[in-house]
C-alpha cells in the first residue's frame, strides 16, 4: 500500500512538472509581455515593471525562479490586480467551488444510484422507462442549457430561488442541480446496467435459495457488487464536476475559482492563468488519487499497483 501511494505520488509530481513546464513556456511564447497590451507605458515604467517581476532575466533563470517559488507553494503575484497574489485569488474562490462541487458529488450519489436501482428492479416497467428517459435527456442536454432553463423557470418565472448569489441555502439548489445533471444521469445508467448484470449472477440465486429476505439479498449481495463500477467512475466524475463548474459559476455568477479563471483569460492575466491551471491540475490529481485509494479499500479483490 505505501509503495503504491508513493508510486502514484511520484507520477503526480512528474505530471505536475510537465504541466508547469508546458504552461511556463506557452506563456512566454506569447508575443509581447504582460504590460505591452493596453495603454502605451513609458519605457522606463515598463522596464521598472519588468525588473520588479523579474521579466528582464534570461528565460531559464525565470523558469528556475518560478519552479522554486512553486515548490514553496507561492504562485506569484497577479499582473492585472496589483497587490493581489494568485494564492489569494485561489483562497477566495476555493471554498465556493469546493462546496458546490462536493454538493454536486453528493447529489450524483444520492440521486443517481437510487434511480439506477429503482430502474433495474422494475426492469421494463414504467419506473424503468421513466428513469431511462430522464437519464437519456440528462446525458444529451448540456449543463448550460439545463442551468438556463432551471434559472428561467424557477428563478425568473416562479421566483422560488434567487437568480444568483449564495446568500442562503436556496441559492445552492439550482447550481448544484445543473452541475450534477449530466453525472446523475450517467451514474443512473451505469448503476442500472451493473445491477441488472449482478441480479443474473448465480450467487444471487443462492442467496435467495438459502432464504434471505429480499432486502438482505439486494443490499448485502446485489448492491455491494454492482456498485463497484460506480465507485470507479467517481474519480473522473469529481474531476469533471470541478472543471464543469466554469460554466455554472459563469451562469449563476458564483465567485468560485472557475470564474476567476475565465476572467483571468479574458484579462490576459498570465500569472493567474498559470497559477490556477497548476492548482487545478494538482487538485484534480489529488481527488483522483483519493477516490482510487477508496476504491482499493472497498474492493479487496483489486490488487495493489495493478490497473483494473
Amino acid at each position, binding site marked *: 500500500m505505501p509503495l503504491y501511494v508513493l508510486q502514484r505520488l511520484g507520477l503526480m509530481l512528474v505530471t505536475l512538472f510537465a504541466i508547469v513546464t508546458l504552461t511556463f513556456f*506557452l506563456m512566454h511564447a506569447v508575443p509581447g509581455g504582460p504590460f505591452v497590451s493596453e495603454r502605451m507605458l513609458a519605457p522606463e515604467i515598463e522596464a521598472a515593471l519588468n525588473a520588479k517581476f523579474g521579466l528582464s532575466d534570461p528565460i531559464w533563470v525565470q523558469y528556475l525562479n518560478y519552479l522554486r517559488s512553486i515548490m514553496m507553494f507561492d504562485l506569484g503575484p497577479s499582473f492585472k490586480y496589483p497587490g493581489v497574489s494568485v494564492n489569494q485569488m485561489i483562497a477566495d474562490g476555493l471554498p465556493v467551488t469546493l462546496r458546490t462541487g462536493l454538493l454536486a458529488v453528493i447529489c450524483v450519489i444520492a440521486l443517481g444510484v437510487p434511480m439506477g436501482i429503482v430502474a433495474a428492479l422494475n426492469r421494463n416497467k414504467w419506473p424503468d422507462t421513466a428513469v431511462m428517459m430522464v437519464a437519456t435527456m440528462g*446525458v*444529451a442536454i*448540456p449543463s448550460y442549457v439545463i442551468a438556463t*432553463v432551471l434559472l*428561467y423557470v424557477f428563478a425568473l418565472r416562479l421566483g422560488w430561488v434567487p437568480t444568483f448569489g449564495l446568500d442562503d441555502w436556496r441559492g445552492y439548489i439550482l447550481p448544484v442541480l445543473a452541475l450534477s445533471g449530466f453525472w446523475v444521469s450517467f451514474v443512473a445508467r451505469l448503476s442500472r446496467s451493473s445491477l*441488472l448484470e449482478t441480479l443474473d449472477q448465480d450467487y444471487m440465486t443462492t442467496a435467495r435459495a438459502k432464504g434471505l429476505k429480499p432486502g438482505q439479498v439486494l443490499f448485502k449481495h446485489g448492491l455491494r457488487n454492482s456498485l463497484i463500477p460506480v465507485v470507479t467512475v467517481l474519480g473522473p466524475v469529481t474531476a469533471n464536476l470541478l472543471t464543469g463548474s466554469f460554466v455554472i459559476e459563469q451562469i449563476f455568477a458564483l465567485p468560485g475559482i472557475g470564474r476567476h479563471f475565465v476572467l483571468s*483569460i479574458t484579462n490576459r492575466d498570465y500569472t493567474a492563468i498559470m497559477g490556477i491551471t497548476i492548482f487545478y491540475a494538482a487538485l*484534480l490529481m489529488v481527488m483522483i488519487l483519493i477516490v482510487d485509494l477508496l476504491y482499493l479499500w472497498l474492493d479487496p479483490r483489486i490488487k495493489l499497483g495493478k490497473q483494473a
Partner: protein
Amino acid sequence: MSDDTNIPPVMWEKLDRTAGAAEVITAPSLTYWQDVRRRLWANKPAVVSIAFIILLILSAIFGPMLSPFSYYEQNLKLANIPPVFETYRVTDSTGAETRFFLNASNFNLYEVDNSGHIVGIIRGERKDMLKKSQAFQFGDKIVVLDYSSLPARLVAPDGAVLQPEGWQWNMTYLFGTDQLGRDVLVRQLYGARISLTVAFVATLVNFFIGIFYGGIAGYIGGKTDAVMMRIVEIISTIPLTLYVILLMVVLDSGLISIVVAIGSVFWVDMARMVRGQILMLKQQDYVAAARTMGAGTGRILTKHLLPNSIGPILVTLTMLIPSAIFIESFMSFIGLGVTPPMASWGTLTSEAVETLRAYPHQLFFPAAAISLTMFAFNFLGDGLRDALDPRMRK
C-alpha cells in the same frame, strides 16, 4: 418424454438421404458485417439518429449557400423577431388592408404579407411616454398601442380592442432573428458547421493517432508499453478544458485553440481502449498462426488485430465525438470559443441567455440543436454497441 404420443405412420416422411443433404445450409449465410447491419437497421432510434446526422451534415454544408442571409448581416430594424407570431389585420375606409403583428416584448409593429413574409417595421407616431401608448396610422384609420398594462393591447379608434386573426409562421426568418437582427437559422447552420468541424477533427485524430498509438503500445508491450501508457496517463489527468485555455493564451482565436487542443490530446481514450483490445487479441491462436506463416508486424497489426477491434473502436468513437462537440459549445458558451460575429451553438445559447427575460424563445433553437445532436450520437452509439456485440445488449 411420454409414450402415448400417437402419430399415424402416414404423417412420417422419409428424409432424402442423398449425400450431403444434411449439410446444406438453408438459411442465407450472413457475414459478421451483414449481421451487424441487419441488427442496426432493426434498431429504430439508431436509424433515426443516422438519418438526423446525415441531414445535419448536408444542411450544414449546403444550408448557408441556399439562404438569402449571411451569418453576420445585421438588420437592426428587424431585431428580435419571433419565429411564430399572432397577426392582426386593419382595413381603412378605402379598403386597403394591412396585415401586421405585434412584438409583445419591444412594442413594435411589423407588417407582414399574406404568406407570412415580413415587409418591414411600421412607423408610428410619437410615443406617449406618460400614457404609455403609441398611435399607428393605417390609411385614415388610427390604431393605438396601449402598453400601460401588460399584455399590451391594440385599441381601435372606437375603443374596441383588436383581436388577432391567428398564428402565422415567420416565412422570411424561419427561426426568427436575434438581438442584432441576424437570421437565426443561418447562424444555427454555421454553428452546425463549427460543431461538425470539431467532430471531424476528433474523428481524424482518434483514427490516426489514437488507434496507432494504442495499437503499437499494446502490440509491442513490455517497457515500450509502460512508457507509452505513462505518457497517456499524464495527458489524461488534465481535463481538455485546461489545455484549451492554455492554448488560448498563445493562439488568439478560441476556435483554433479548441481544434488544436482536440487535435493534440483527444486521442488518449481511444489509445487506451485499442491497447486493451490488442493486448487481448494478440494472444489469440490465429495471430500465432499468422506469425508462424511468416507475417510481419505490420501485416498482423493491420490485417488481423485492427479489423478485429473495429467494433469497440466505432463505439468509442460515437461516444467521443459528442464530448468533443460538447467541449466546443461549453467553451463558446463561457465566451472562450469562437469570436463574434461567428456563431456556434454555444455562443448562440449564451446570446439567448442575455435576452432570456424578454425573448425566452431565442433559447429554444440552439438548445434544441445541440441536444438533438447529442441524442442522435448517444442513440447511434448505443445502437452500434448492441449491433456489434449482441452479448452486451441489456
